[in-house]
């Protein structure tokens, strides 16, 4: 039995029926990580000892005849920007290479309470800035479908780990597409929830008004299951939303007949790879066949999403990352005769190129005399972008687009040209600016590489996205393929 291809809901049944023990599951998971890691390189830190101890507790519970929760005993991993009490949290940066948080992020607390078992912390672009995971200060993660290609980013390690069977599910964070784009490249399900639906407490901030945590899973049911565990209001996060959160898994399986699906024309224009477009169009036909009503719509301010994003996100980042100064924790330059030199050298040596580029962009955008022209203007255009979606949702339940204009690209293809790299996120940025939820599912393949389909919903309409994705998945079986790593 290849446990590493199983979904969480299947493994849960195996555990409940005592066909496997949690200890066996964790051991098998550890072996799979070990076997795949030389090819994939998804993990920065592994936590096997703790995992075995936790598995023993779950087994004791099962042996005592107690009921276990839907995620209890399920091996998972976290993007390395979520704080884990006593476990190193690096953000794939030299500046936090030795940082061990004294507290758990709210999502970590919730997953611990749900009994999920942490196997390790996943690689990412440094401080979540990037679209290929090539900006990790440690090493690059490889795409399990073709190890000469990037897994996407910034949550590349989390996406690759799920695709390669190194974790049943993982959490990533999405500021401009950092869950959806790697999910697309790695052919897994990835959800960017509504801003405020999942607590950011303990998520090392990149851009506070855009960051959201969400799950990577091998199918839609698992995604709904993990969402059930992590979504909800949190007193510790003032931007978290005090609304009612549904049971996402229980809502799966409903008919999507008569659902109105909008295709924003700006997402199907120039720059979209024709092969990607063909796969998406085919997927649209499938949904039409399921009874959905398809129509075209427009999000006229889409062309401004990239410049707006690259003002707001770096501005917030320049402030959020200012605390890494070598005074209290993390990396400190040894060659510093005085305070100012210590600040400068620590940050010059501790941060990588892309992070420094964005800190400079953001510092400039907030500077006296430029604030109104850049940051303030960007916030106003952001309101217009949000308005585009509000208008579209008057006619449509869900909007559909490619997640990325291309399939996974090769290492080094875009590292010399930052703007080219930024364009990887052209289909995903607006969603973060508008604060709405969006889900990536695998639509099919182009030349053996996964093509991601993005479903975008109204604020707090995650359940609808999951229902639609579930219907598609059931109709196509697109989630049943797994990459062959030869290990």
């Amino acid at each position: 039995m290849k446990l590493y291809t199983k979904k969480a809901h299947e493994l849960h049944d195996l555990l409940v029926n005592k066909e496997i023990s949690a200890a066996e599951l964790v051991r098998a998971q550890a072996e799979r990580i070990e076997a795949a890691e030389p090819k994939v390189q998804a993990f920065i830190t592994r936590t096997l000892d703790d995992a075995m101890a936790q598995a023993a507790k779950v087994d004791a519970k099962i042996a005592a005849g107690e009921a276990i929760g839907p995620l209890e005993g399920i091996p998972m991993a976290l993007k390395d920007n979520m704080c884990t009490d006593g476990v190193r949290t690096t953000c794939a940066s030299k500046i936090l290479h030795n940082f061990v948080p004294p507290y758990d992020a709210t999502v970590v607390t919730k997953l611990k309470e749900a009994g999920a078992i942490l196997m390790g912390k996943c690689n990412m672009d440094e401080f979540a800035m990037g679209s290929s995971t090539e900006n990790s200060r440690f090493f690059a993660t490889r795409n399990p479908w073709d190890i000469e290609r990037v897994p996407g980013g910034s949550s590349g390690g989390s996406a690759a780990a799920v695709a390669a069977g190194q974790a049943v599910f993982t959490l990533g964070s999405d500021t401009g597409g950092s869950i959806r784009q790697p999910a697309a490249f790695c052919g897994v399900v990835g959800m960017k929830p509504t801003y405020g639906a999942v607590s950011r407490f303990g998520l090392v901030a990149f851009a506070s008004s855009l960051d959201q945590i969400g799950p990577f899973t091998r199918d839609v049911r698992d995604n709904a299951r993990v969402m059930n565990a992590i979504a909800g209001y949190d007193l510790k996060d003032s931007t978290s939303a005090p609304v009612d959160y549904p049971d996402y898994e229980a809502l799966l399986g409903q008919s999507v007949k008569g659902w109105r699906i909008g295709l924003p024309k700006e997402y199907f224009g120039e720059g979209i790879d024709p092969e990607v477009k063909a796969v998406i169009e085919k997927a649209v036909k499938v949904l039409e066949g399921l009874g959905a009503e398809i129509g075209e719509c427009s999000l006229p301010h889409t062309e401004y999403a990239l410049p707006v994003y690259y003002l707001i996100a770096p501005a917030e980042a320049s402030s959020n990352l200012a605390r890494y100064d070598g005074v209290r924790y993390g990396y400190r330059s040894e060659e510093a005769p005085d305070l100012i030199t210590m600040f400068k050298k620590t940050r010059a040596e501790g941060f990588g190129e892309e992070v420094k580029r964005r800190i400079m962009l953001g510092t400039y955008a907030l500077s006296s005399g430029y604030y109104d022209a850049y940051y303030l203007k960007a916030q106003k255009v952001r309101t217009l972008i949000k308005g585009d979606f509000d208008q579209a949702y008057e006619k449509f339940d869900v909007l559909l687009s490619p997640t990325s204009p291309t399939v996974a690209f090769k290492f080094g293809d875009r590292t010399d040209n930052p703007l080219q790299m930024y364009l990887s996120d052209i289909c995903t940025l607006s969603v973060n600016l508008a604060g709405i939820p969006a889900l990536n599912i695998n639509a099919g393949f182009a030349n053996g590489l996964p093509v991601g389909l993005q479903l975008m919903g109204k604020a707090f309409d995650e359940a609808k996205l999951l229902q639609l994705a579930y219907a598609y998945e059931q109709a196509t079986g697109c989630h049943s393929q797994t990459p062959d790593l030869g290990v």
Partner: protein
Amino acid sequence: MNNETMQMERDFDFEIVMGLEVHVELHTKSKIFCGCTTEFGGDQNTHVCPVCLGLPGVLPVLNKQVVDYAMKAGLALNCEIAEFSKFDRKNYFYPDLPKAYQVSQYDLPIAKDGYLDIEVGGNPKRIGITRVHMEEDAGKLVHGGAANLAGAEYSMADYNRTGVPLIEIVSEPDIRSIEEAVAYLERLKAILEYTEVSDCKMEQGSLRCDANVSLRPWGQKEFGTKAELKNMNSFKALQRALEYEVERQAEILRDGGKILQETRMWDEAKGMTISLRSKEEAHDYRYFPEPDLVPLVISREWVDRVKATLPEMPHVRKERLVHTYGLPAYDAGIITGSKAMADYFDSACKAFGVDTPSGVEADDKAKERAKQISNYMMGELTRLLNASEFGYLNSPVTPENLVGLLQLLEAGTISTKIAKTVFEDMFATGKPAKAIVEEKGLVQISDEGAIASIVRDILTANPSVVADFKAGKEKAMGFLVGQAMKATKGKANPGLVNKLLKEELEKL
């Protein structure tokens, strides 16, 4: 402006223009964005948590009490409370600032457009309050190997104070003299103490004052170039720093020089202000809205709720004491200058049965009693408190015990002179007056027979003095009274002694 100040300002060749920025620590139990205690002191870095340490991933949660207190201070300073306000980040690098930004309020403060009335030399003046905003305090650096940063071998950071809530109160540039500046700060401190939002301890840094100072030729409309003064940690420091700075600027201007726009620090030891940074070196704080907090929306009901908790303000209270009890304005001003003292007065009035509703004029008897209380407070009690570690809040002589003493005086049980020694004993021991009087046998002798007998003895023993008196020497009378008081250890009722002496002398 009284004659003296007017004279002084005429003598001075420039008009002084000042505005004060006062930081006040709010007296909440916990910090502004986390649950850590705000208690002063404590071992270094013991009042901290991941949130106030600004560790990666943490988020702030606003303490509602801070909003209540900031609003209360704003209302006490006659400000408008903003229906919609927000927090902003003020970005700068310093080791005592763990997030490298301070969460503050930039363009939309919680309160604005208020005023504060002061009095200098008996003349009233209104100083505008530009704004009151909330922010978090930074930590403290402890330098090793030297007293100051200069020369230190190493520095350590203590974050206990990080995240303690502050309000910053910014005045309009309405202040025209050093006396006005000091009066403004004194009045502001009194008002804040009245509202009980801060303990206003300057020595513990819970009240800190910066000043913007500029000079201009008399009659000129435009402001001169200002210097911002920092680090004035007492009223005395404020006074000295302003005196120094005004003279420094005047000298430059007299020599035809130009004032540099800069930030200057008051050096208490050197007695001078020292340039900290010029305008060119000024920080660009890159303010922007704090994305980790939602905007603060304050309803009319919330404002009304806080308004209802406002106590009677000093000037209202002063007018009440003048109107109700007929106290001189000066005395009423001193008593209401601190809430503790004013509360003491009101408690004593109550204990003496003369508490009178506001707006009603008390009868003469009650006025007399209130005056007695006021006199004792302004004289003996204040003198003893100032010489001790106590204050009106924890005075060893309670208002009830003070009234106990005044009742013994009123009943003639003790003399005024005895009362003074009894009061000192009361202050030293905390005992009620009656107990001390009984213990020491200090009850005034008002028994006519007993005093008459003593008087007769004295007259018999001093025939020559009696002869002097008969010969018209009035002085002799004083000697005889003194003898009688001496014989009774001061306990004889002086009025009776006088009366009986006269009677007995006439008989001779």
